[in-house]
């Protein structure tokens, strides 16, 4: 059976830069610096106290009134995902259960969902207030916990923290009854979710899929884990806006962020027949693994080169046809070097000539939310034929540097490639093609 062509028809963004696709593009294209001191909790004793934090965010305004009481069983990651999905669905002009009309654009069974998620951190105050009712002589008392302590937790406590709840809430809000998946592969999650969603649509398994990812590391557990890994930037707490420096010679660690990028991945012909706006066509995917990823203290790029090679080959193009590379750029020196070497290995000379961007300089590293935001950036860049700036990039590190610039550049972009990888060795890549009706 011939494969269906697949397009991005909706972009839902919740990011430290802005909410919504249009404002997100304005902020990214103008190099807005969004990293600041953490205000969500008192981070004074953390070695890294800065982040890409969302300004005043709640999912309440993004979920239907009838569903608002469910927001209280959503961890922040879930709230972000629910909001990003709603923005994506609206942006695509899709009618779903959420629009509460008489009809929906697609048969609910033909609307899928595939959301990348991270390890959701427990709210320490919530669990702590229960735990501290079961303490004897300064120590946790299992017997007391079983008898009474645990009853201080709300019955639905566990459901706040299951990673599949990002997708589950979205399927409920939008009445999406097609295949639903949750990918948990760190920073590769978003690209891999869109990979799978696109394959599903191409094979005729769904008409459209709500796909991407979301995560927040802005909590003590999320932050401390990155700190223990030694990945965080601790030298620029006093100049947060300049701290995240992907690929720059002075990169000095990751700055965490929070957000989500959720896209509508749709059958191109069906999108055309409903006269939807088409941001870009998805024409090539690749996924790969680096067996060295298990040792997370030795950075690799997760065999990103292999994933990119595959994506480019599937797109049926040569690397010099690319007009944009959207790189991950964690800002950890060794990871950036491994990543730029991977791009070089996959694309050869084109890795140094094709304009590239990493949005982490502006908003920080958003892990499971990163891939969706990178794909959103690529799709918007294709629409605007503009390469956004890489915030805080001044000088290259090493011989294999990408073609990055701290200023926005007008450029002909027929194709763009996006790559993402987790520190544990999984990677994914996607080639997008400019849509010309």
């Amino acid at each position, binding site marked *: 059976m011939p494969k269906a062509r697949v397009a991005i028809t909706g972009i839902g963004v919740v990011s430290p830069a802005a909410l919504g696709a249009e404002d997100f593009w304005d902020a990214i294209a103008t190099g807005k610096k969004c990293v600041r001191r953490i205000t969500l909790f008192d981070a004074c004793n953390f070695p890294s106290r800065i982040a890409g934090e969302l300004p005043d965010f709640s999912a309440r305004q993004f979920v239907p009134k009838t569903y608002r009481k469910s927001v209280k069983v959503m961890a922040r990651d879930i709230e972000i995902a629910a909001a990003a999905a709603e923005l994506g669905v609206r942006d695509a002009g899709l009618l779903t259960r959420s629009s509460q009309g008489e009809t929906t654009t697609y048969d609910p069974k033909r609307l899928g969902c595939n959301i990348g998620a991270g390890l959701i951190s427990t709210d320490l105050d919530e669990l702590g207030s229960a735990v501290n009712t079961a303490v004897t002589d300064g120590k946790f008392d299992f017997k007391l916990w079983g008898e009474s302590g645990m009853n201080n937790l709300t019955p639905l406590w566990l459901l706040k923290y299951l*990673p599949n709840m990002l997708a589950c809430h979205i399927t409920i809000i939008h009445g999406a*009854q097609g295949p639903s998946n949750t990918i948990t592969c760190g920073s590769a999650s978003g690209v891999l979710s869109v990979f799978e969603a696109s394959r599903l649509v191409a094979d005729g398994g769904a008409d459209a899929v709500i796909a991407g990812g979301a995560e927040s590391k802005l909590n003590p557990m999320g932050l401390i884990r990155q700190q223990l890994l030694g990945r965080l930037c601790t030298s620029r707490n006093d100049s947060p806006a300049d701290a995240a420096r992907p690929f720059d010679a002075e990169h000095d660690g990751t700055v965490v962020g929070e957000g989500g990028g959720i896209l509508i991945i749709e059958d191109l012909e069906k999108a055309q027949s409903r006269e939807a706006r088409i941001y870009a066509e998805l024409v090539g995917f690749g996924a790969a693994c680096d067996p060295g990823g298990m040792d997370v203290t030795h950075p690799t790029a997760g065999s990103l080169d292999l994933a990119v090679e595959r994506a480019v080959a599937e797109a049926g193009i040569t690397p010099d046809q690319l007009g944009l590379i959207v790189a991950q750029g964690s800002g950890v020196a060794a990871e950036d070097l491994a990543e730029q070497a991977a791009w070089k290995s996959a694309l050869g000379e084109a890795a140094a000539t094709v304009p590239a961007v990493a949005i982490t300089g502006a908003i920080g590293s958003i892990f499971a939310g990163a891939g969706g935001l990178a794909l959103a950036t690529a799709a918007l860049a294709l629409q605007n034929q503009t390469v956004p700036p890489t915030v805080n990039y001044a000088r290259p590190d090493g011989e294999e540097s990408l073609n990055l610039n701290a200023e926005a550049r007008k450029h002909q972009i027929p194709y763009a490639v996006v790559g993402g990888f987790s520190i544990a060795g999984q990677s994914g890549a996607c080639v997008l093609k400019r849509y010309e009706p």
Partner: protein
Amino acid sequence: MSRRRVVITGMGTVNPLGHDVASTWAGVLGSKSGISVNELFDASTFPSTFAAQVKDFELADHIDNPSEHRHAGRHCGFALGAAREAWEQSGLDRCDWLDRRRLGIYLGSGEGSLDFDNFTSLMIDAWENGRVNTGRWAELALKRMDLHREVEQESNMVVAHLARQYGVRGPAFNVLTACAASTQAMGESTWQIRRGDADVMISGGAHSMIHPYGVTGFNRLTAISVRNDQVETASRPFDMTRDGFVLGEGASVLILEEFEHAKSRGAPIFAEILGYGASADAFRITDQDPQGDGAAAAMRGALADAGVAAHQIHYISAHGTGTRQNDEVETKAVKAVFGEYAYKIPISSTKSMLGHLIAAAGATELITCILALRDQILPPTTNYNTPDPNCDLDYVPNEPRKASLEVVMSNSFGFGGQNNSLIITKPPQ
């Protein structure tokens, strides 16, 4: 071009009934119970004092390089053991031309076990005026927390450990759709091979939620059995007296391979995967769709993908958790899909013996389906004594039964409404 066929060439498992496939199958056919009083922590005052635990597992008994994986979490150790059995059985360890870039991995693995003592003592020691003082907490956490214990909680770490062990360079995914995860992983692996993204996939799942907050979470949801006075028989799928599932742990790994690839290296072939279906209830996070529409859609999807008719299914390995709701909804969904024929299909839940391995459940249950096909025998639903009028199908009560089996289905439904079904058949001739 005809579509690429996907076969199973290796399987391995570590679960409450055994540390390999043979002992697990002997346990199932002997109607044994893997359930006992919780020995992993003091749960004596918890609403549920028992679980289906993996006992006496030593990684060194399973792999030659346990020290390389010394940081692996509990469930990851189980997965390394299961993977070794599967890999050796498949003969891939002796295949010198395997292209590692065409070898992928797609697991449904849960999060690693929490560093409970450190995590909990920090919340106590940094507690001030009704909340955690995060300044104090950070100061203590930086001293006490262990990098590896924290990192190994990421659910993609089992993928990373197995990828290291077998040199995987192809597509690598982890799905965590709660109780459906490893079924979804195997279904998606099948599609990866069919689409040509890989030739061989290491698939399956691993999970252990038998830790204090895992049991707490399920107890607060009132999802697990509290039959503390009859722990061995507490898991009672489809029985009138069922009162929830029994939390289990373990790992199962299967080698999925493109048929021609398997043939060309003379691999053992245990079954062929014919079809996979996935759906979402899109109903409520706390409840299944009471009509079973989502579950039915997954089964119908698998039938359509397999290109087989409903009446060709000879056995269904049920999700069959033993909760009031699941078993009734699943029964309803089977009737919706199979009509009158539903009453003629044997359906059983090996969770009655294994407990509920959560993310690892589906892969473990698929292994029992493969063995059922091989031996032409149906695994039983044990502890089935009192029929429930709302669950009125043939659940293969208490004893295994001889049967003539060609095509079988395995169901998994995740908390939150993600549903998956797989259909397999005997090896191609």
